[in-house]
């Protein structure tokens, strides 16, 4: 088959020579090779359209690196017909068999001009033979069989060194700093955020005015980190309201969050020695429907006109309605969320806003819990490393060294 194709090619070339000689004269600008191609195309189209495809050559097999062991990379040199007459090959079929003599089945197709294919339907450790078939308009020619090729399982994805290093780094930093914080027994330092004063001020004002404090802990349930952070802040807010004797009003969107809030507030009142002041009915379940909840809270704000509103946790579209209504009722508003999309509305309409990570840090700092404070310090250490990495990265890039960037590229 192969031999036949080549003989045909050679004889065609011979026939073409006189035509070539004629054709070359007028085409002054074109390189000789171009005219040769053109002439050949002309000729081939006249005599035997698409009959003379030469097969792809030098098929080679290799195990796909860093994969499940279910893929073999097949590579070949494109059919000579294609390099001489672009367009003569339409596509390549990649064919596979489990022995050189058995029937080859098509496993994939790539467009003309492509010289490789990853066959990801193999079983690890099994031998496979491949042929690549060039497909023209109305003819096709297959290469000789190549094999055996094996796909092998890899136990580590070498492309993901960078991800592994960063994962381990951040995790270790958090764990180490938690341990340090546990050992230093309350000596861990975290910056005092301005919001702490704002909390005191807001509750103080509510007390003076004889009005309620409203606390909203976001739209997600207790398994969301933001809700957990909110609970930590709630514990401090409840301590203040307990000592001032101010009513703390908490409408809840989730039943589980409600019981968690009740526990938290009750403990705070006990700690401050005011268990008699604690009223379970002030912490109640409203509804889980987002807009029903919004309408309910809106009603509370308009009716009771609380003097201090807290919105801490995960918020979505409701952030705008709360902040706007609260502003209109003249309450001091303190907000905080890690939902980036909602931050602008809080920043615009509230007196203090905890931005992203600040929500976690405020909770940790107020709780005084060494585990939480240690985590925040671990996160800070990671940020310091990021800072240095970026600066070093810029310097290296400007010096013409791309090593860090290449190492950090994904995939």
């Amino acid at each position, binding site marked *: 088959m192969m031999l036949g194709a080549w003989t045909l090619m050679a004889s065609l070339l011979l026939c073409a020579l006189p035509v070539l000689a004629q054709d070359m004269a007028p085409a002054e600008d074109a390189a000789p090779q171009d005219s040769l191609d053109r002439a050949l195309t002309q000729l081939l189209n006249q005599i035997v359209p698409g009959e003379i495809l030469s097969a792809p050559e030098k098929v080679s097999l290799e195990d796909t690196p860093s994969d499940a062991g279910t893929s073999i990379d097949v590579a070949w040199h494109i059919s000579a017909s294609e390099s001489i007459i672009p367009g003569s090959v339409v596509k390549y079929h990649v064919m596979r068999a489990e022995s050189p003599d058995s029937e080859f089945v098509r496993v*994939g*197709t790539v*467009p003309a001009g492509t010289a490789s294919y*990853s066959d*990801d*339907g193999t079983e690890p450790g099994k031998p496979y033979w491949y042929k690549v078939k060039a497909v023209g308009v109305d003819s096709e020619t297959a290469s000789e069989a190549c094999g055996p090729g094996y796909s092998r399982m890899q136990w580590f994805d070498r492309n993901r060194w960078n991800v592994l290093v960063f994962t381990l780094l951040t995790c270790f930093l958090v764990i180490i700093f938690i341990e340090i914080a546990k050992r230093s027994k309350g000596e861990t330092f975290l910056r005092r955020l301005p919001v702490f004063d704002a909390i005191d001020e807001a509750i103080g004002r509510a007390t003076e005015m004889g009005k309620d404090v409203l606390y909203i802990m976001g739209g997600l349930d207790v398994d969301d980190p933001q809700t957990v952070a909110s609970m930590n802040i709630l514990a401090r807010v409840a301590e203040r309201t307990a000592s001032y004797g101010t009513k703390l009003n908490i409408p809840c969107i989730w039943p589980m969050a409600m019981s968690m809030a009740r526990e938290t507030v009750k403990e705070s009142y006990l700690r401050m020695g005011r268990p008699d002041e604690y009223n379970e009915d002030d912490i109640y379940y409203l509804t889980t429907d987002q807009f029903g909840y919004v309408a309910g809270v809106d009603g509370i704000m308009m009716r009771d006109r609380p003097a201090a509103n807290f919105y801490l946790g995960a918020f*979505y579209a409701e952030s705008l309605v709360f902040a706007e209504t609260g502003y*209109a009722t003249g309450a001091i508003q303190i907000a905080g969320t890690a939902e*980036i*999309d909602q931050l602008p509305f809080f920043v615009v309409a509230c007196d203090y806003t905890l931005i992203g990570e600040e929500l976690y840090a405020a909770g940790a700092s107020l709780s005084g819990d060494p585990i939480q404070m240690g985590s925040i310090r671990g996160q800070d250490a990671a940020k310091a490393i990021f800072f240095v990495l970026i600066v070093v990265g810029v310097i290296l890039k400007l010096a013409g060294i791309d090593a860090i960037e290449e190492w950090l590229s*994904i*995939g």
Partner: protein
Amino acid sequence: MDFIEKIGRLDRRIIFLTVALAVILPLFFPLGLPIEVTPPVQQLYDVIEGLSEGSVVMMSIDYDPSGAPELQPATLSILRHCFRRDLKVLMLGLWAPGVPLGVQALDEVGVGEFNREYGVDFVNFGYKPGGAVTLVNLGRDIHDVCRQDIYGTSVEELPMMDDVKAANDIGLVLSMSMGVPGSDQWIWYYHARYQGNLATAQTAIGAPRYYQYLQTGQLVGLVGGMKGSAEYERLVDHMGLATTGMDSQSVAHLLIIGFVILGNIVYWAEKRRKA
């Protein structure tokens, strides 16, 4: 000074009324202002132009009726572009309430305008629960996640899916997204693991957050809000609701800017008086 005080205490229902009017009036008296195409939208258009014929575009409908005014026009325009370029479309969605919107769009464009055949030129696998976790599985094995299409047909019986098995058989992933799960999950759990082209159409709420991913190349295009949809309508030269809406947007934006200025005048006037 009484006037300032009066404005300061403006009933919010009057404000509400002015917004409604700002949106309604341009519907009756269109301004027909020209729409300029911005780079993030042009970028997506160019990527789709660059895909070879027969490539598969995976479109994820990650929105619900409240995202429809902004995202449905983008979905329609992008589908028009895909079918015009003879690309195949694989549709699914991470939000259940978006599925009928996807069906509607495929009916209108794929069947209605381009006369494409279901199962050969496009397929729809409907709602996929599990968000992030589903996407990890999807990139590895599409047939495992999409066992049946929305009509209950097995994936094996859909001719288009014969060669579409994993992430590397997909030419472009489009997440039409308005929240979680959505583009965040596509970036984190799909693109980070399987690479390839990923683009997103966002409501104007989420869009500002995705410029950072555009810069790193994790996204190859960003259609932001109704304006982005209108830009895409212009690119495929098929004006729709987003283009109509731009006049209302123009007037409403001017109104809001006016309110911001007015509010600040009141604020400063009151502050001066108190001082």
